């Protein structure tokens, strides 16, 4: 049995610890994808009985969409979005740093960048999910987009529903979708600058006033370990 998961990403190791049940359906899907796309499939991950992740190259993005639609029968478009793998300099864990700095402690450096299932080489990654409604399986496709020029060929001719999702991804992550018919702001005002969902875009409200709900994660009095007692009865 060939491990089809790419070596990258800690999640694959988690899966390796378990006794891996086989999932012939999804391995078959992956095989047919590999047969169609060849070397364009650069990473994959299978959670048996549950889900399939496939990472393709940016050049093959449109082709991959056409293949999963026609060959795998995934005619149902679920969603398309993006991930910024950069560890957030402003994230929640850094918020508590903010408090620590006020009380005089040393700030902590953000951890190194890691990517998720099916790996990844760049900071920005577009992922989309399509599904086959007759046989009830879905595929999550991922694609790396270049850091310096984040652009991809649009999926609108393949899945009409990608229209709004690509607009959202363009607006929130600054990824250009070449050939998109109407790439304008979805939510934000037309003259808005910046890409709010990128990790280096500060959540300004949080910077100005740390949220009081933060106390929730402080250790309970008397508890030394953060893996406290369960609440189960």
């Amino acid at each position, binding site marked *: 049995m060939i491990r089809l998961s790419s070596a990258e990403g800690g999640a694959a190791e988690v899966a390796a610890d378990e006794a891996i049940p086989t999932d012939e359906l999804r391995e078959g899907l992956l095989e047919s994808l590999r047969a169609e796309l060849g070397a364009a499939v650069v990473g994959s991950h299978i959670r048996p009985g549950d889900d399939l992740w496939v990472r393709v190259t940016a050049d093959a993005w449109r082709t991959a969409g056409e293949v999963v639609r026609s060959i795998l029968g995934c005619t149902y478009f679920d*969603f398309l979005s993006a991930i910024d793998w950069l560890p*957030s300099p402003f994230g929640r864990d850094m918020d508590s740093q903010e408090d620590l700095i006020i009380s005089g402690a040393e700030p902590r450096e953000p951890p190194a960048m*890691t990517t998720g299932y099916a790996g990844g080489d760049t900071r920005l990654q577009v992922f989309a999910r399509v599904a086959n409604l007759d046989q009830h399986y879905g595929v999550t496709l991922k694609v790396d987009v270049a850091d310096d020029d984040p652009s991809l060929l649009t999926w609108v001719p393949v899945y009409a529903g990608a229209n709004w999702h690509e607009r959202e991804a363009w607006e929130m992550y600054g990824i250009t979708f070449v050939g998109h018919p109407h790439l304008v702001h979805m939510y*934000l005002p037309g003259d808005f600058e910046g890409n709010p969902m990128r990790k280096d875009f500060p959540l300004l409200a949080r910077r100005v006033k740390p949220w009081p709900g933060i106390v929730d994660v402080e250790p309970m009095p008397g508890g030394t370990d953060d893996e406290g007692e369960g609440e189960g009865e």
Partner: protein
Amino acid sequence: MTAVTDRDQLAALAARANDARANIEFEDDGMTLNIGPQHPATHGTLRIVAKIDGEQVVSAEPIAGYMHRGYEKLTEVRTYPQVTTLINRIDWLGSFANEVPFILAAEKLMGIEAPPRAQHIRTILFELSRLANISLFLGDLAIQLGGLTLGFYSFRDREFVLNQIEAVTGGRFHPNFDRIGGLKDDLPKGWIAETKVAMQKMRAFCDEADDLLFGNEIFQKRTRGIGVIPAEVAKSYGLSGPNARGSGIDWDLRRDNCPPGLAYDKVDWKVWTHPDGDAFARSWIRLQETREASKIVDQLLDTIPSGPIMAKVPRIIKVPEGEAWVATENPLGEMGYYIVSKGDLVPFRVKIRSASFNNVSIVPWVCRGVYIPDVITILASLYFILGDIDR
């Protein structure tokens, strides 16, 4: 009563709509009508820029974003239990249902499962929020089409469902009741009997809606053959829930791919589909779904197992590294959360896939060449909640 008798006529209507679509390609001048952002038909602040030629719509472009709250960004600074407070506000008519897929996704990543009693009650509350949501749809549809009376009936009878939700969770609109590994609390005393009464009232309401609205000639004239969405188009736009089933797609996430953590495998109900794909089909599916939901609740109430309502979970929840996608059949359609965790207190990335976003994205396609009143019919029959589009 609802069987389609005149299929030829429907086909002719659909063909005419297609013709209209083709004909207006060449029209150039006309008037731009701003429907919204403040408009009675948009229940929220959706704006539709419609280019019209007389009463005919040449093109309609929905403009969302008047209510964008940036939940995807906000989840990145909230711990997992805190996120449910936010996502309650996505589809505010069936709020409990918003929490479930997120909690299930977190449970999947953590590898824990709620005890059977919690799964049962979770499913009951899930269906109750479906009732609260769809019963309002039926009233709202009537109001959009000019029949005020059913609107008031729906508010009257929805109250019984909201009371039951309130009795368990303490909140009528935003329960925030689901927890990773179970539920916050057990059912109060006497709740089961009261809920059964409420379910009877919902069924009576459905019969009333059937008589007053769906049997009405004018209603049928207004909805039959209006806004026809073929199954293939529906799939490529990602329409889900009753909108997809109204187009003849036999797919229900409660039956197919139901994520573990819900008790749908223990009940017996029918997934209705309708082949027409028009506004009537979508509305009719929702009417049937209200009935089915009340039956599901009845069955579940009879078989609640005893036991704990919380699994053993650490008090401070750290979700192991990984990615998970869980989608459930929410009142508005498929709602899913794609969670990327880095093993931290907070999610690294949460993609909220809400049903209305996809459902409304089809509006430009379906609203070409129809009349202005049909735009209202189509919007009402697609049934969106603004919070569910903008998130």
